[in-house]
């Protein structure tokens, strides 16, 4: 099976024109001057094959990961999807020596595969095999990576697959992923991150097989490769693998600078309109932090406290779901999180030099959409206003110190996080978390909250039916109460009053029909 790095799209077509309305500033504080997001310089390129080994001599399995510094951010304008399609021409295609049918036939008895996933900045090729099939597998892996066949029929099939992932799967088969992907497009307009990993429908149409061949030759080079190996491999095997991969051209250093993402001006709302019975809510904004920055770690604590992914102890979860039954779950993120509906803990393979902070409110009933959005804004404002209490800080720190160790239980995850850390130029992430958390204080966390979090300038995405009606209601911005089918406490109702009165204050509201999403 291919790793679940699906090609979810982005709102490339999101024009963010519109009047700049006055920002909804936090109530009790003057607006905080946020640090300007920084432009990021590409890291220097090492001409040799840089290798990270995570040996586990007792394991019968061997894992391989090839991280190439090429991703959808490198797609040429008008050919969005080229990196993903090139990836599939390695992972889901024949080689120069054998057809795709023959390749899968050869891999099948050993239950192995060559899996390729394309993210914004990197393409990762992964494989795992039992050690008694290692020699056979290594030969097939090297063949697939260094001698792709570029058959026209494979090209057509893979191009269609990517296009369908946008037109059928993302637009019409999962409202949550649709909203999450739409939010990325909204946060990074006109930026190399703006379009989905799978590209755009029109971009894919414009790609030729020659484009793919050229892109492969330029991008899948030793200069861009970071190799990871793990498990119970025998002595000498790494050298054999590297000798095989040495058939890749050395390549040339390419600048991969990124423009600085901009904070939106005010709260800018996109309503993605489609036939649906519920409303999914997402909002966020760029932050100038990655795992390599010291301030990332106090903000990691704050975000976990607000709503650790798929856990039941975050503030958002408690307030919106547990007390009010609004939906299935509510979470907060300090960085991009791949495929949130499908995983309980973060998976490696998506390192990025530019990140964003976001909240995810899972689908609510249409009548509750304004209340839920206000509730999430209210809780974030409250966190910014009050910060964490010392006891909350201690508890969340204890949680993260232990919980993050569970993120690397499998060989493949250990290797993947190791490669990501190298990409960021830092020591192993999970170790870094423990070391950083030991040293930080509640004051550090509250300082980071004040410095980086805000609700005045947001990109907000709602996936909804009847968008015009919702737009009009959002513009009216009147209180809409939550109705309960049961008796609830006076305290809850009193707080509901405050939530209802929270102003959404949209600076601009745009309606995008779903069939325009990911189009070009």
């Amino acid at each position, binding site marked *: 099976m291919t790793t679940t790095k*699906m090609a979810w799209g982005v709102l490339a077509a999101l024009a963010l024109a519109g009047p700049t309305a006055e920002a909804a500033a936090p109530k009790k504080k003057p607006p905080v001057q946020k640090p300007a997001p920084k432009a990021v310089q590409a890291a220097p390129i090492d001409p040799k094959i840089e290798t990270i080994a995570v040996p586990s001599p007792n394991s019968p399995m061997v894992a391989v990961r090839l991280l190439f510094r090429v991703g959808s951010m490198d797609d040429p304008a008008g050919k969005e999807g080229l990196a993903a399609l090139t990836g*599939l021409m390695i992972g889901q295609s024949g080689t120069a020596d054998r057809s795709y049918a023959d390749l899968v036939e050869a891999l099948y008895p050993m239950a192995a595969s060559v899996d390729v996933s394309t993210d914004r900045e990197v393409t990762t090729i992964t494989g795992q095999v039992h050690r*008694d099939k290692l020699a056979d597998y290594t030969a097939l892996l090297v063949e697939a990576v260094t001698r792709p066949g570029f058959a026209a029929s494979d090209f057509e099939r893979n191009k269609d697959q*990517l296009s369908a992932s946008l037109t059928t799967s993302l637009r019409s088969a999962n409202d949550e992923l649709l909203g999450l992907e739409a939010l990325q497009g909204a946060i990074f307009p006109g930026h190399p991150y703006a379009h989905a990993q799978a590209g755009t429908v029109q971009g894919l149409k414009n790609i030729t097989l020659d484009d793919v061949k050229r892109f492969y030759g330029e991008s899948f080079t030793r200069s861009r490769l970071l190799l990871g190996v793990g498990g119970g491999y025998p002595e000498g095997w790494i050298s054999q693998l590297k000798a095989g991969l040495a058939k890749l051209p050395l390549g040339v250093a390419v600048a991969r600078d990124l423009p600085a993402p901009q904070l939106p001006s005010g709260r800018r709302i996109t309503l993605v309109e489609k036939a649906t019975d519920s409303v999914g809510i997402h909002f966020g904004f760029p932050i100038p932090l990655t795992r390599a920055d010291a301030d990332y770690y106090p903000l990691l604590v704050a975000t976990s406290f607000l709503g650790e992914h798929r856990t039941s102890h975050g503030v958002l979860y408690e307030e919106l779901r547990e007390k*009010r039954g609004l939906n299935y779950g509510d979470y907060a993120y300090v960085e991009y999180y791949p495929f949130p509906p499908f995983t309980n803990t973060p998976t490696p393979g998506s390192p990025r030099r530019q990140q964003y902070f976001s909240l995810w409110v899972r689908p609510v009933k249409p009548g509750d959409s304004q209340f839920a959005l206000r509730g999430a804004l209210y809780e974030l404002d409250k966190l910014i206003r009050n910060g964490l209490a010392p006891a909350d800080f201690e508890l969340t720190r204890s949680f993260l110190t232990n919980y993050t160790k569970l993120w690397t*239980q499998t060989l493949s995850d250990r290797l993947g996080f190791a490669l990501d850390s190298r990409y960021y130029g830092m020591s192993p992430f999970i170790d870094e978390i423990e070391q950083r958390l030991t040293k930080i204080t509640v004051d550090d966390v509250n300082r980071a909250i004040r410095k980086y979090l805000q609700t005045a300038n947001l990109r907000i995405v709602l996936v909804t039916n009847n968008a015009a009606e919702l737009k009009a209601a959002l513009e009216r911005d009147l209180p809409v109460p939550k109705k309960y089918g049961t008796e609830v406490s006076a305290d809850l109702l009193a707080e509901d009053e405050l939530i209802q009165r929270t102003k959404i204050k949209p600076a601009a509201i745009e309606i995008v029909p779903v069939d325009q999403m990911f189009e070009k």
Partner: protein
Amino acid sequence: MKPLYGIPLALLALTFLAVCAGSARAAEPAAPTADIFPFPVAQKTLGNGLQVVVVPFDSPGTVAYYTVVRTGSRDEVEPGKSGFAHFFEHMMFRGTDKYSKDRYTEILKRMGADSNASTDDDLTLYHIVGPKRELETMADLESDRFKNLKYTEQVFRTEALAVRGEYAKNASNPIRQLIEKLRDLAFSQHTYKHTAMGFLADIEAMPAQYAYSRQFFQRFYRPENCIVLVVGDVDPAQVFQLAERYYGDWARGYRPTEVAAEPPQTAPKSAQLDWPNPVRPQILYGYRAPAFSTASVDWAALDLVGQLLFSENAPLYQELVVDKQLADNVSGGISAQRDPTLFNVFVRARSLEVVPQVEKTIADHLAKLGKDPVDPVRLDRIKSHLRYAFAASLDSPSAVAEQLAGMLAITGDVQSLNQLYRRYAEVTPVDVQRLARQVLVSTGETKVPLVYVAPKAPEPTKPEPNAAPGGN
């Protein structure tokens, strides 16, 4: 390398993989006649009937503490109660006198545990994965809520709303809707008629079922119906001691459900599912198939039929997806269940125009399996694939626990996994032919095509109210 670009992961729920053929790490794939499960298993049954299963695993400092309840949506026999096992799973996080919900949550948070639960047709599964040093705390917390769960009607009603929200988040996925429709159509008597989520009307009526929820707890959350399964950096003797201490006073009281048998199907059934957003046409077929069993090779042979049809190197897959490119996905197989189930076939065609050709191709390949014996070399390659895939899948304490939990829920016997792989080894081309003829037949077929049908122009809904809060 099967493309997952855009293929809804919920499809995986259709296959047997989640239960049995898939996870591991620490041993060589066994020879066909040896035990496939590579780790030692320690077992004990307490005086009250609670089974305790312990698997030491090389995960320094980490343990996976699982509780298997052998009750799922299969047990929802009363009208109007579909989805209740799943709903009740939510209620299990609502606290006791000893550990309130907030206290329970705080303890787990402090230990940094991964804690959650899931409900399926035949089981409800609870887990805590966390530090070894907290093993006793886990035993204390889990035994307490299984014995002493307590919640108010108000809390119960609010949680019902969250369950409705869970349905809402799933509703935009065509695969989930296809499965729901297929099962409703395929079964008339048996509770596999509904999914673990339950019928929407029943979910919406849940807030009024507080009294029933107490009965549900009393009836199914009993030691004879549960298995405590601990995998990881543990000493079995210590786990058995803790089990005696914390679960020993848990009173018996389980009464098995009498689930109506599904009468034989005599004619094909079909019903279309209209989809309100543009999608490629999709079809889900179900063929009446046997319950999981290792008493004969039949179930194992049908699982191999799944590989013969849907693995990436399978002739059907190659023809539809790779050569003729008429479909972008074809998948399926049989799931391991306590009662007779369905062998599923899912296909997503590239366009409406090619649907007849796609259907004919599938029908031809199904018929061929019944007509011509398969190449024994091909069967051997499948058996090798299954053994290596299993070895590769046992890569964490949770993965090991989930392999065993699925099997324990269905058979109650940890040895079933080893027996299954022995049955795989015994399957012959004649078995495959016999089972294909028996199961993949039109009289046992239920079919649900999903096609895009533009919805009528939406009727204007009432403007958002601006009144004071409800609270009724």
